[in-house]
């Protein structure tokens, strides 16, 4: 188990170094960043001055070393637009994104896993038809299109939900979600729901045919126990990895949904900063998102190892 964790840690570390590299050179590839920062009628001297001030006149490798040494301390520089450290802006927007992603994941799990279990345990039944339908819908409906339909029907038409923005309810110092999260979470979580249905269903179908399930039947256990303690418990192990990956996707993949619903999260901030060519902010968000995804995958891998006794008690 220790060796397993160590190898995952090393992998994650290498990933992050790669990400830093890409994030840094992303800026270089767009051409001269300084040219974008100054007004069109600035004199060449003024441009040169700014270049020197921001350190863009130094050799690329020196700039990279400087970038990395700051980045590991969370310093990505000032947002040009907001005149505020990029990291600060990110942390301000983080709760909204975490709320949306968690709600989306919750919806996907609560619907997807039981539906996959029901479908896989009764192939050919009405539950199976539902499960396969849900899997297909989740994978084929584009979420931005769904978001627009939801707004038209449930916000504009029926008026059940607000069509944009985030409201929270304060409770003992916590900002709790309100119904404003429901439509965006549904639109965002549908894809993940489809993934979970499909994965759970096929895992159940496969595990059902394992010898140990026949043994469980031969012991006279009730179906419920067999499905939950034997089949689902075995399916849960790979499911943990899927959940980790999906949560990372939800945390980083909400740019359309956040924009459409004017949800004040990271995706929205990213869209805005790209529009403004606010490079420090784009870099900070890109790195931060990667960090979140890599840590989630690492956590999922470790949880996977803990859940599987063959790894937990392996060498």
């Amino acid at each position, binding site marked *: 188990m220790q060796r397993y964790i160590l190898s995952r840690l090393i992998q994650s570390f290498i990933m992050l170094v790669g990400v830093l590299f890409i994030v840094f050179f992303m800026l270089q590839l767009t051409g001269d960043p300084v040219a974008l920062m100054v007004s069109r009628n600035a004199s060449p001297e003024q441009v040169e001055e700014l270049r020197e001030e921001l350190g863009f006149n130094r050799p690329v490798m020196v700039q990279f070393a400087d970038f990395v040494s700051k980045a590991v301390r969370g310093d990505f520089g000032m947002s040009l637009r907001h005149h505020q450290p990029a990291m600060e802006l990110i942390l301000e927007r983080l709760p909204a994104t975490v709320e949306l992603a968690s709600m989306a994941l919750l919806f996907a799990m609560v619907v997807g896993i039981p539906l996959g279990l029901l479908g896989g345990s009764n192939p050919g039944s009405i539950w199976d038809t539902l499960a396969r339908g849900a899997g297909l819908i989740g994978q084929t409906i584009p979420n931005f299109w769904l978001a627009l339909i939801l707004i038209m029907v449930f916000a504009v038409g029926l008026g059940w939900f607000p069509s944009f923005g985030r409201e929270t309810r304060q409770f003992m110092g916590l900002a709790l979600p309100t119904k404003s999260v429901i439509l965006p979470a549904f639109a965002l979580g549908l894809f993940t729901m489809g993934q979970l249905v499909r994965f759970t269903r096929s895992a159940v179908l496969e595990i059902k045919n*394992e*010898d*140990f399930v*026949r*043994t*469980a*039947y*031969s*012991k*006279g*256990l*009730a*179906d419920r*126990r067999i499905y939950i*303690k*034997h089949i689902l*418990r*075995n399916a849960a*192990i790979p499911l943990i990895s899927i959940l980790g990956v999906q949560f990372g996707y939800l945390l980083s993949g909400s740019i359309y949904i956040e924009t459409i619903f004017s949800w004040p999260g990271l995706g929205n901030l990213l869209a805005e900063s790209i529009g403004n060519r606010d490079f420090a902010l784009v870099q900070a968000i890109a790195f931060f998102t990667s960090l979140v995804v890599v840590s989630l995958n690492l956590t999922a891998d470790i949880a996977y190892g803990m*859940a*599987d*006794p*063959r790894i937990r*008690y392996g060498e």
Partner: protein
Amino acid sequence: MTKILSVKNLVIKFHTFDGVVHALNNVSFDLQKGETLAIVGESGSGKSVSMLSLLHLLPMPPAKIENGEAWFYGAGKEPVDLLKLNRSGISKIRGGKIGFIFQDALSALNPVMTIGRQISESTMEHLGLSHAKAKEKTIKLLDRVGIPGARQRYDNFPHQFSGGMRQRVMIAVSMACNPKIVIADEPTTALDVTVQAQIVDLTKELQKEFKIAVVWITHDLGVVAGMADRVLVMYAGAPVEIAEAQDLYANPQHPYTIGLMNALPSVKGHEDSRLTSIDGMPPDLMEEPHHCQFAWRCPYTFDRCWKEIPQQIMVGENHVVSCFFDVENRRPRGHV
């Protein structure tokens, strides 16, 4: 002797995409209380199917029980037909009255559940024990089947055991609820020879102690000689001969059994005593049988063998054979 199980005219077919597999054609046999019945036969002869079907453990579809009865005398005063039981009825029999030992304990045990839980969950289900009581009973049982340090081993997972120890756990699983019958489907095939012998001995001991009837499915006639009271020889989905073990070895009646005995090395219990060396191939089970299924490989066939399916004929006390020819006297048997 009293019967614990009586199977009559069992016919099972698999309806597959390629056609109908005639897996069992008219299987009938009795099992006596506390005895060991060995079932021997080539691969595909229907040994596993006949036993799995009794506990409704075949995948249905494709399997379909077309005919037959399986009277079980160990569930209360009245016998019950296992094949007619509903889900909850058969659940009470499974594990509670009839236990199963599978061939490969590594794949037959849940890899992510402790072996202790895998045993106690069935005692909780059938005997209504509490968690704590079930655990104590399981630890005693683990100790009884020869797991050293049973209390600590309770929380171990299957992959933490050796093959032989895992098969001991499997035996404990099958006997946890004091069943009347234990069906062992080639329980030693995956093990090496010395461990095989230990498993056979352990099963015999426990069988005596708890008065369990054991059905022991095997390819290995060497094992059979050492442990079985009676032997059922299967061929192409039907029993061709059933006899007491000694009687069978001394006086085999069916040409197939005779072939098997001749193919046995003279040293009894030799590890290579497998059923491989009779000329020819077993028949295609996709064809519906219309005559003796051994006729293709039989040196004694005459016209009747190609026209009728032989029924079971008594040729001695506790000795039945399904064959039209009397090999000993070199002539067809009289009509029975």
